[in-house]
């Protein structure tokens, strides 16, 4: 690209980009600072933008007063299980959708895409009734099943884009060498696509880790609650304990940020692959 930028233009560009960066990072900075203040200092004037005394009291309180350890464990278990299974299943369907032509293919893609557009909440009530019949209300396994289903459509679309970039010749060669199709998929294609698959897994994991409305509807007992469900419980009362809330928010956000930092490049590829080609 020819460098046609004048100096004032450059200054404006740098300033605007810098301003947006500050705006983007500030809310996270603020919640972190809040969580590290002494509980009393959170509600005092004037506001301080740096803790006068650093304190982990809010964090300690989370584990002592609320069963935050249990919630973290539940969220970890449920998100890991659901994301793994969903990624595996989506891999199979994405592979077929990328490699084969068949009559109902368009309809199937449509059926997957439609799930992204219809408000999932229309299914909230009936899903509760279904889970009641299956005796899976307030049950981690039940929530995992639903999360798998929710992750599959988008994950399939995303992975399909990655598969389309891997040449057919690769698995054809493996199959001539005597590999079965599924063998070729796992031995030849998956290693090539590893970054994409990891990104898909992380995307699913973060979505399950963050999901609120289904878990609020389905999980009742403290021993089964995920982090978002517990946080939602924190706000139903009129007075939010912002000390605990800020600490809990930081603990919830940090793992997903770390994961996204690893995978962001591939997630972006996956998200943009479909649209840009169109």
């Amino acid at each position, binding site marked *: 690209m*020819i460098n046609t930028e004048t100096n004032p233009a450059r200054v404006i560009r740098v300033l605007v980009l810098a301003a947006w960066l500050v705006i983007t990072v500030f*809310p996270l900075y603020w919640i972190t600072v809040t969580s590290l203040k002494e509980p009393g200092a959170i509600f005092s004037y004037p506001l301080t933008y740096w803790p006068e005394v650093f304190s982990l009291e809010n964090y300690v309180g989370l584990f002592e007063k609320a069963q935050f350890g249990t919630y973290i464990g539940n969220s970890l278990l449920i998100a890991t299980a659901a994301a793994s299974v969903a990624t595996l299943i989506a891999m199979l369907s994405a592979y077929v959708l990328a490699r084969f032509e068949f009559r109902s293919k368009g309809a199937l893609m449509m059926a997957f895409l439609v799930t992204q557009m219809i408000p999932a909440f229309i299914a909230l009530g009936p899903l509760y009734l279904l889970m009641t019949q299956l005796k899976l209300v307030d049950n981690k396994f039940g929530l995992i099943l639903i999360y798998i289903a929710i992750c599959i459509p988008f994950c399939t679309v995303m992975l399909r884009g990655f598969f389309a970039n891997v040449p057919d010749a690769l698995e054809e060669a493996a199959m001539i060498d005597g590999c079965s199709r599924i063998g070729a998929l796992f031995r030849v294609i998956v290693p090539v696509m590893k970054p994409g698959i990891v990104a898909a897994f992380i995307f699913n994991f973060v979505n399950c880790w963050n999901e609120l409305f289904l878990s609020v509807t389905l999980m009742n007992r403290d021993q089964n609650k995920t982090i978002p469900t517990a946080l939602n419980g924190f706000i139903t009362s009129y007075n939010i304990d912002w000390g605990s809330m800020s600490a809990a928010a930081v603990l919830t956000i940090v793992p997903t940020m770390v994961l996204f930092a690893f995978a962001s490049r591939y997630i972006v590829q996956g998200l943009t692959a479909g649209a840009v080609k169109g």
Partner: protein
Amino acid sequence: MTRTTIDLERPSSGTGAPGERPSDRAGAPRGSLGGSGRRRVFTTRKGVAILGFLAPAILFVSVFIYYPMISGSQMAFRNWNLTNLTDTSWVGLKNFEAIFANPVFYTVLGNTLLWVLGSIVPQLVIGFAIALWLRRRFRFRGVYQALIFFPWAISGFLIGILFRWMFNSEFGVVNDLLAKAGLIDSPIPWLAEPGTAMTAVIIANIWYGVTFFAIMILAALQSVPDELFEAAALDGAGKVRTLFQITIPYIRTTLALTILLRVIWIFNFPDIIWAMTGGGPANQTHIVTTWMINTTQRGDYGQASAIGLIVVAILLVFSAFYLMAIREKRDA
């Protein structure tokens, strides 16, 4: 649930035969998958393999998404209230009539329109600007992109919580900064008043959504060949002209589809509002989906489903017109 996947991984036990009915999917795919090693793949065999690979996905999506959705849709035409499950009779359009007769519905519709437009226009403009400026290489561009990417890792619900705290009337940082800048004399009770509450939730949503546009548009921009810009520069086209006559037309399809997806998505995005105001004060920040969740939680599944169907209808009509409009423009 795990059984389906394990089955697929297990080496062939060879019970499947070509031409089996689709409903026999449990046994069929294994055999054909294992046996299709040579490239001589019959069409039916291929069909069975395709079905086998797709079966788990279809099973999960049908049982846990489509079944509840369809069964939810029929509830819209029934008297379906958790408080009185003895009478779940068909009532025709009564639920819809009740909604259309409810003044709150029109408030909610107006709010939704404001929420969608007020969020998407600034998201698009800021996102576009950032993408344009990010297209140029500079040191730390990768780091910059990673940093502005981070709102994505956070759930809408938590973003709502972050902003609820920042917009707190007494100890919120927004009021503090505005006061320090000399813009306000007394703290604004942001989330307690209708007008400001809507502004606050929309600001949170803009903050969240800019990244998405920036990333999608940046990806599209990178598909524009450099030669086009070079040619435009040689012809003496200014920056603004290049933008409107080359850049935007080139990425028009991506842009149009991104906007459509985003409209649908923001329409269906209750999380931020849920965490910040819960739809209050006095329903003034309820959008259709928060109102629907609220109705579900009250146990009135019939009315909630009717609201859901209304949402689907609105989005379908909107998408149809929108797609027609961009197609016409392309043909012209």
